[in-house]
């Protein structure tokens, strides 16, 4: 069982035909690309990385005395593999959201690097739906396209927004205003807004924290379905261990701005799998319970309790 349900990125690398997608193009030895690799060997990473973070540190002013600096992210190395779902878990204030904002490019690093070798587009789903209240649903969804290509907005953007709304099954509320929607619907609109740019990397910052349990499970299922369809990479920040396990291939435990452990999730189901197992059923399996114990032990260990 365990071997069959190893995480998806691992299975994919096994099934890739040799010579495809593994070797980079051939560069002459004196090219800047190769010289850079020779001088900085740590930049060599898996060609399938979606995000490479090296010695990343983020410092904020604060602390007990004036002039004190607080390290929200402390010397973190992390590779996010293309197509995987990575969950960042930890207590409040452990730096997981800051790390996510670093990946999104919303937070500057004090030192270190964060690179996106894939160079695809990135989308972000906030804890709050964060819809613009004066725009109709469809205009909210097309907003990223309007902001990205300044000239080609308009009809094409509206079409894309409509398609994205179809994916979250909200086409029929396209012309409503956000105040006319329920909390769950707003969150789905915000997911549609993230999908409209066809992102390669989807960042979720405790997206369902404000919702009730049933809605949380349903939206988790929606995200899984969309991930299977589009094969984007997901980085999910949550303090809910069950949610982290249900929605990830790897679980990354953070404490005090540092990564304490990165655990392969044995419960993860592959993205190629077609039959849909209800997420609630997965939560009842012994593997789920066992891994839940492992993750929460790690969290407690990190906190020193």
């Amino acid at each position, binding site marked *: 069982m365990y071997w069959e349900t190893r995480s998806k990125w691992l299975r994919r690398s096994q099934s890739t035909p040799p010579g495809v997608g593994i070797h980079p193009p051939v560069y002459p030895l004196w090219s800047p690309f190769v010289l850079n690799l020779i001088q900085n060997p740590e930049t060599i990473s898996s060609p399938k990385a979606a995000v490479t973070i090296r010695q990343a540190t983020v410092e904020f002013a604060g602390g007990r005395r004036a002039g004190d600096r607080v390290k929200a992210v402390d010397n973190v190395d992390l590779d996010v593999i293309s197509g995987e779902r990575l969950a960042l878990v930890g207590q409040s204030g452990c730096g997981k959201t800051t790390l996510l*904002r670093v990946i*999104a*490019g*919303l937070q500057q690093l004090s030192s270190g690097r964060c690179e996106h070798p894939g160079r695809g587009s*990135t*989308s*972000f789903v*906030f804890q*709050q*739906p*964060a*819809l*613009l*209240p*004066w725009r109709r649903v469809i205009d909210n969804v097309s*907003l*990223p396209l*309007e*902001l*990205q290509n*300044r000239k080609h907005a308009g009809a094409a953007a509206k079409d894309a927004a409509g398609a994205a709304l179809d994916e979250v099954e909200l086409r029929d509320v396209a012309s409503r*205003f*956000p*105040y006319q929607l329920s909390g769950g619907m*707003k969150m789905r609109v915000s997911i549609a807004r993230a999908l409209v*740019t066809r992102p390669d990397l989807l960042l979720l910052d405790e997206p369902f924290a404000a919702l009730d349990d049933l809605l949380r499970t349903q939206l988790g299922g929606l995200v899984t379905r969309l991930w299977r369809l589009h094969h984007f990479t997901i980085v999910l920040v949550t303090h809910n261990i069950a949610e982290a396990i249900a929605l990830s291939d790897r679980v990354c435990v953070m404490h005090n701005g540092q990564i304490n452990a990165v655990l392969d999730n044995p419960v993860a189901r592959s993205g190629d799998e077609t039959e849909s197992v209800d997420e609630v059923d997965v939560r009842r399996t012994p593997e789920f319970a066992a891994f839940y114990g492992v993750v929460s032990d790690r969290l407690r260990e990190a906190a020193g309790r």
Partner: protein
Amino acid sequence: MRSSDRTDNDRLPETSNKPGLNHRGWQDALFSTLSVTVVAVFGLLVWHLFVRIFDLPKILLPTPGQVAAAGWQRREELLMASWVTFYAAAVSLAVAILIGGVLSIIFSQSRMLRRAFFPYVIFLQTVPIVAIAPLLIIWSGYEFRTTVIAAVIICLFPIVNNITTGLQSCRTEHRDLFRLYGASRLQTLVRLQIPTSITYLLLGARISSGLAVIGAIVAEFFVSNGSVYVGLGALMTRWQGLSQTDALIAALGMSTLLGLALFGLVNGIGWLFFSRYTRVD
């Protein structure tokens, strides 16, 4: 009746965002109209009895009936003057919103400009309009535009202050969203900052609507000295000279109504054209 007087359950329909008056809202409106009327009638009664009991001369304090009669007798004059003053106040408010909007947008684009010039905007608020009006007469003459300039000066601060605040109070998530998708400065201004600031602008305009009438009337006191200007302020100085206390009080009531009318106009425009910007999601 203030909403704070009610229990949480009572307040639900009022805070709901559904458009239109619901049943309870309609009842509420009726109740508040009734209670306001009762207070007004009671106040007029007390006033009337006060004058009668102490047998005050008409020139010191006329009864409400005498005031109404005087107002009715001079209704054409009074209405004309009110229109002139209302027009001056409305034009001033519009000009103040225009100037204030441009100033605030400039302030929002540069912290240095904001730091350098914002104190002078506060200066506009602290300078007494009565002291600056004679100067304005010297510079601008006994004209309608002098009235407008005085009223603009008094209106400008609440508007600039509110719009500047509004332009900077976008939600962090919204700002992040715009940054994430590489929005330009102009895009952020037009699609995020200005829509966010409209609520604040309306708030400032409401405060300024009363101030605009005050500014216009004070300026008219001075403007009326040298010309055939007909505004409420001009009427008031004339009637005060003639010791027509009843007519003077009628004019006072009219100027209060003007403030209310301008306030209503601002609210109406806000409700008609900008209601989508004043909602919370």
